[in-house]
């Protein structure tokens, strides 16, 4: 049968450290040694102070829902089988915001902006593991 694969990340020299980390079940963000700014998406130069002393450093994986949407009509045919599906933007406790998805067992009627979440991982293949999110447990 003819199927269309979902688009997957193509890591670049600037981003492969991020995807290397998720493969090992760690979430990292670009961190500036000069001004301590932490940011995503990754880059080799700090957007705040233009220092080149930027490396990937681990974060807690905890944050809050900054925004969430439910896609009913996907713009790409590979996602038709998932629809309706959610996409969240999470603001990490350390500051940066990132896209993600709440795991399928999430009760969407209980989701709102500000909901505490924590990262979990979905292995796609030997190269790519996607960070996902679930409602935070504990405090």
């Amino acid at each position, binding site marked *: 049968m003819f199927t269309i694969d979902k688009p997957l990340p*193509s890591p670049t020299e600037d981003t492969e450290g991020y995807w290397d980390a998720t493969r090992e079940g760690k979430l990292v963000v670009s961190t500036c040694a000069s001004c301590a700014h932490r940011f995503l998406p990754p880059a080799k130069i700090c957007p705040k102070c233009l220092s080149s002393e930027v490396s990937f450093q681990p974060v807690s994986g905890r944050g809050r829902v900054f925004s969430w949407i439910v896609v*009913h009509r*996907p713009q790409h045919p590979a996602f038709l089988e998932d629809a309706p599906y959610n996409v969240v933007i999470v603001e990490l406790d350390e500051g940066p915001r990132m896209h993600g998805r709440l795991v399928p067992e999430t009760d969407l009627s209980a989701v709102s902006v500000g909901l505490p979440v924590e990262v979990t991982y979905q292995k796609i293949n030997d190269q790519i593991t*996607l960070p996902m999110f679930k409602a935070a447990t504990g405090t």
Partner: protein
Amino acid sequence: MSRHPLKGTHALAGVGLSRFGKVWGTSCLGFTLEACKNAIEDCGIPRDEIDGCLVSMPAIMGEQHGWATRIAAHLGLEPRLACTMDMGGATPIGMIQTAALYIEAGMANAVICCFGMQNNPQGIMPQLFGSQFAIPYGDIGAITFMGHVARRQMHLYGYTGPQYGEIASAFREHASRNPSAQKREPFTVEDHQRSPYIVEPLRLLDCCLVTDGGGAVIVTSLERARDLKQPAVVIAGAGQEHGAEMIFPAPQRNQAPSGAGAARAAFGMAGVLPHDVDVALLYDGFTPLVMHELEAFGFAKHGEVGPWVATGALRLGGELPTNTHGGLLSEGHLFGVGHITEGMRQIRRSAGERQVQDAEVVFVTGFGGAPHEAPPTLSYTTLVLTQDR
């Protein structure tokens, strides 16, 4: 304060749209040329006087570099200046501003600014665009981005679905008076609320149309424009702002809504204030973008746009007649050239059943960039247009 050197010295002399809607039988190139021909005929400028050619990058249609020079060649021009520009839907106004600068600097006399877009036949898969940090989750295109913008507005200000619906309903009512609009059947706020979710919280009627077509505007000095066929439409103010703030604040920015600077620049140059605007033509890819612009550009107070819109303020006869042609939401997605064209009609007094009486100050905006990227990059362009006095 000294007078801005570009204030009132250049004009939109001619304008042309191609056939648009779901149009078969021609290409992105064909639509572009058709619009250019119509713009040249509109103002009657001798073709060999056009010595600048600016064209918007048809990014998702697979065209290669050198596009502007190719368009010029197809028009039989050998311009002194040709450049392909890429700011998404902010490009048409950006091209007009660039044209005025070229002319002011003596590097061109008359510049044609144009675009073409072909989405039909459907089934051509647009080149996948977006970030490796968003696409794997199915967050693809401008529509998901605007869903997030709406979610944030609803969370921060309590805007409601019917308030977004009022924007769409008002523009459709205007389109019902525009014989060339793609969608002319009026709908109510209740109809909007019954339309299906596309990307919740966005419903079908919050989203712009998909349109094949092209548009072109000819910019020249006000002096030259006065001798051409149509009343000159004067460029009184212009501004731009580029950023990424709506979702991912850049660390060096303040917290003013993104785009505010583009309007401030245009109003400042023209010497007018938002309340002087008689007709607003706001780039309206999606209803939450209109909400955002109304606040960012100073038409309504912070967090009060939704209730203000719900009073009918954007309708013809309302406080701020907006998108009197129907906009991207109902006239068709003409990349903002439809907005510029309508602004010219309002100034020329040729807007027919939707003419705003005595319209003196028209404010036109463009918006684009790559909102589907992470971080989303946003470009705002603005124009204040006035009559020649």
